[in-house]
């Protein structure tokens, strides 16, 4: 077995850490969570020279080892805890060539923990443009470490980095800064009380704002000699330590790092002026949003049609090829229909994430955060709330986690409570299918009505979040406000590899995250829809055939005839055969519909129908609304399954939904009124059990998620009710 070494990849945010990780690991990476907490854990395997393998762990970005948030503490905890199975043999500290001074603070701290460390100076390709020169040899000597000058964009320096990792045993473990000079007596006492422990490590544990799981601060409770230092005294010492480190760094960089200011004048400042301008900034952002939503529709149409057609054919193929029976029906009508209902949205989801990744990669997203901060402040939200709200467009769960960076508890609570209003990717399939069904074709100023509707729903989500924040701000009476600092990274051309990885990873987690739930729910629903106990269910064939003979076909079948009789030529001698075949199919559909209505699911749906009827929904939509409480995407899968049960037609989900008739009004079920009502319901309702669970965990109480659920559901119901009653 070849030897495997543990490598921790650590660095400040926006230093290109993920790019280095991608270059080292390629596709050999996986994403998970740290045990016990929902902080993303990215790890991968890198093949090194001489047959050595490295297990690379990409740690959350941190500016220093003096942590203030739980995310940052993950990095520190791993570096301090030698018993952790991921404790690094070597640490790679990724820094950005333009902010080397700030980045070296973290590097010197890691060196002082006596962990072999390699400094990666990334974005080396920008050096000539920015007029930067570095004496690498001298810098290595001064830092007593090894340096890899890397450009992930030009793919240079990665091989050298691999060699340095493989050769990690030769890296010096000496410390850079002796921090005991800031309070000699205190550190001496520390060393004598805990002779077996490293003083700097003890100092880090004492001064952290966050409790570590394996390294409890209680260790120091019995040591009375440390009670002499109050929290403010410790903070003062921490500041002294930072000053001491910067004195050391300044001294080194004076000799090794030069910047020609004349060459450094870039177009960043000019671009920032325009992109963060009070008027143009918002205008440009608005235009970018419009382009994104237009593209999501325009570009996805063809692949979506292909996927839809593929699943319709696959269903047909399963029914024709596999031996007839209930299990074959389950595969065709339950499993394939449910999965098809979600897979069809992959193109649109992928395009959305592609645009988000491009905005992040170019450095534009930070400008958006800055722009939005101006809007947020008057509504009582912290500037830091912008990040969770924007992340909420992907998923509310990591967005709720992202509120951990907000120091003020009440501001954090408000952000947690309003973030689920942001349009997450799970809402997208629901929006897309309903918009496709009820919003007419046509355009305004070159933008399709459908794209404009989608964008309005996103804006409405943000609007609802802000409105709720104002209300909560008044109720909760926030007295103190936190400050907002955002780092504006340099503008750069997006690395296609990074964008590709992001799109792949996000789309994968979207499909597989909800996929298992959708599959399970589709199977249960198929069973409930295919079985029943009543006489009507058992004798459906006889009852419906007799009814058709006496009263003729229903309105639903009339629509079926209208859509399928287009190609029928009455002069054709085979026309009557074709007509007969159509009638047989229509009869089969009526029987299937009757059976479904009297199945277990039918009875359940009928029981909840009185609640959803005022919104313009029938019992089938009611069932989909209930099941989608597990995850919003389940809505489409549920309807796809319901409309497939007992149905032998090779039809796409969209066509099946379009053919549905409201038995009360005898008009298409999905019309403008019921469609808008559904869109608004999903825009505001808290249809996500996982988010509720995360909110409970983050607030440590059921009170907040329960309030959130009641408020959002009521709000959604009332808005949907008003919309339907006005439009019907």
């Amino acid at each position, binding site marked *: 077995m070849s030897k495997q070494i543990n490598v921790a990849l650590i660095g400040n945010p926006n230093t290109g850490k993920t790019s280095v990780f991608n270059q080292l690991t390629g596709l050999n990476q996986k994403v998970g969570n740290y*045990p*016990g907490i929902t902080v993303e854990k990215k790890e991968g395997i890198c093949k090194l020279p001489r047959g050595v393998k490295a297990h690379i762990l990409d740690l959350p970005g941190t500016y220093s080892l003096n942590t203030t*948030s*739980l995310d940052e503490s993950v990095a520190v905890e791993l570096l301090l805890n030698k018993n952790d199975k991921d404790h690094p043999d070597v640490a790679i500290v990724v820094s950005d060539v333009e902010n080397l001074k700030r980045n070296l603070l973290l590097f010197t701290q890691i060196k002082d923990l006596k962990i072999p460390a390699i400094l990666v100076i990334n974005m080396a390709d920008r050096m000539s443009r920015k007029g930067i020169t570095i004496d690498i040899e001298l810098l290595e000597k001064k830092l007593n470490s090894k340096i890899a000058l890397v450009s992930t964009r030009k793919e240079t320096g990665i091989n050298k980095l691999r060699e340095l990792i493989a050769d990690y045993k030769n890296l010096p473990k000496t410390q850079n800064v002796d921090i005991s000079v800031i309070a000699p007596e205190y550190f001496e006492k520390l060393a004598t009380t805990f002779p077996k422990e490293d003083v700097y490590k003890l100092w880090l544990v004492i001064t*952290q*704002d*966050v*409790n570590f*799981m394996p390294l409890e601060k209680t260790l120091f409770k019995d040591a009375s000699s440390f009670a002499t230092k109050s929290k403010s005294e410790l903070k003062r010492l921490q500041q002294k330590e930072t000053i001491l480190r910067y004195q050391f760094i300044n001294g080194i960089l004076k000799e090794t790092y030069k910047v020609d200011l004349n060459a450094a004048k870039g177009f960043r400042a000019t671009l920032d002026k325009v992109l963060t301008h009070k008027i143009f900034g918002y205008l440009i952002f608005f235009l970018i949003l419009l382009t994104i939503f237009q593209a999501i529709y325009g570009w996805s149409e063809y692949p979506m049609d292909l996927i839809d057609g593929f699943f319709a054919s696959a269903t047909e193929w399963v029914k024709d090829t596999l*031996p007839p*029976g*209930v*299990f*074959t029906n*389950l595969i065709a009508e339950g499993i394939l229909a449910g999965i098809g209902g979600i897979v069809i949205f992959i193109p649109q989801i992928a395009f959305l994430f592609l645009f988000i990744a491009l905005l992040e990669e170019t450095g534009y997203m930070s400008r958006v955060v800055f722009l939005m901060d101006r809007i947020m402040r008057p509504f009582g939200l912290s500037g830091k709330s912008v990040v969770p709200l924007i992340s909420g467009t992907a998923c509310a769960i990591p967005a709720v986690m992202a509120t*951990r960076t*907000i*120091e*003020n*508890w009440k501001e*954090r609570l408000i952000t947690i409570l309003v973030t689920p209003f942001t349009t997450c990717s799970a809402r997208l399939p629901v929006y897309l299918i309903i918009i496709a069904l009820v919003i007419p074709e046509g355009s305004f100023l070159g933008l399709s009505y459908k794209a404009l509707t989608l964008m309005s729903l996103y804006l409405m989500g943000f609007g609802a979040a802000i409105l709720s924040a104002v209300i909560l701000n008044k109720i909760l009476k926030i007295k103190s406000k936190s400050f907002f600092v955002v780092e504006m990274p340099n503008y750069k051309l997006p690395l296609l590899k990074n964008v590709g990885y992001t799109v792949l990873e996000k789309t994968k987690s979207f499909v597989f995250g909800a996929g*298992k*739930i959708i*599959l*399970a*729910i589709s*199977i*249960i629903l198929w*069973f409930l829809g295919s079985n029943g106990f009543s006489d009507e269910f058992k004798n459906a064939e006889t009852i419906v055939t007799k009814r058709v003979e006496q009263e003729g076909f229903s309105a639903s079948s009339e629509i079926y005839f209208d859509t399928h009789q287009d190609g029928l030529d009455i002069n054709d001698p085979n026309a009557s055969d074709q007509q007969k075949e159509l009638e047989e199919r229509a009869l089969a559909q009526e029987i299937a519909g009757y059976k479904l209505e009297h199945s277990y699911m039918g009875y359940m749906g009928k029981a909840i129908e009185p609640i959803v009827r005022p919104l313009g929904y029938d019992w089938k939509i009611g069932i989909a609304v209930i099941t989608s409480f*597990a995850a919003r995407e389940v809505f489409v899968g549920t309807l796809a399954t319901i409309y497939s049960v007992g149905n032998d037609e090779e039809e796409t989900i969209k066509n099946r939904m379009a053919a549905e008739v409201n038995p009360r009004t005898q008009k298409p079920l999905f019309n403008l009124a019921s469609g808008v009502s559904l869109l608004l319901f999903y825009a505001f309702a808290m249809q996500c*059990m996982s988010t509720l669970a995360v909110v409970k*965990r*983050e*607030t*440590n*109480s059921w009170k907040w998620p329960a309030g959130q659920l009641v408020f959002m559901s009521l709000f959604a119901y009332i808005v949907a009710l008003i919309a339907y009653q006005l439009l019907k």
Partner: protein
Amino acid sequence: MIQHILVYITLAISVGYIVTKFFIPKSIWSSKKDSSKSCGQDGCGCH
């Protein structure tokens, strides 16, 4: 008959999955639980 058995097995797996996912607290499966370190309390250290 075989098809019926397969349907019931698939159904049982699906129901089992949904129940364990949404209705049984994760703490039953995992012994690692310490509410004293959860967020939302004074001094939890997260804010």
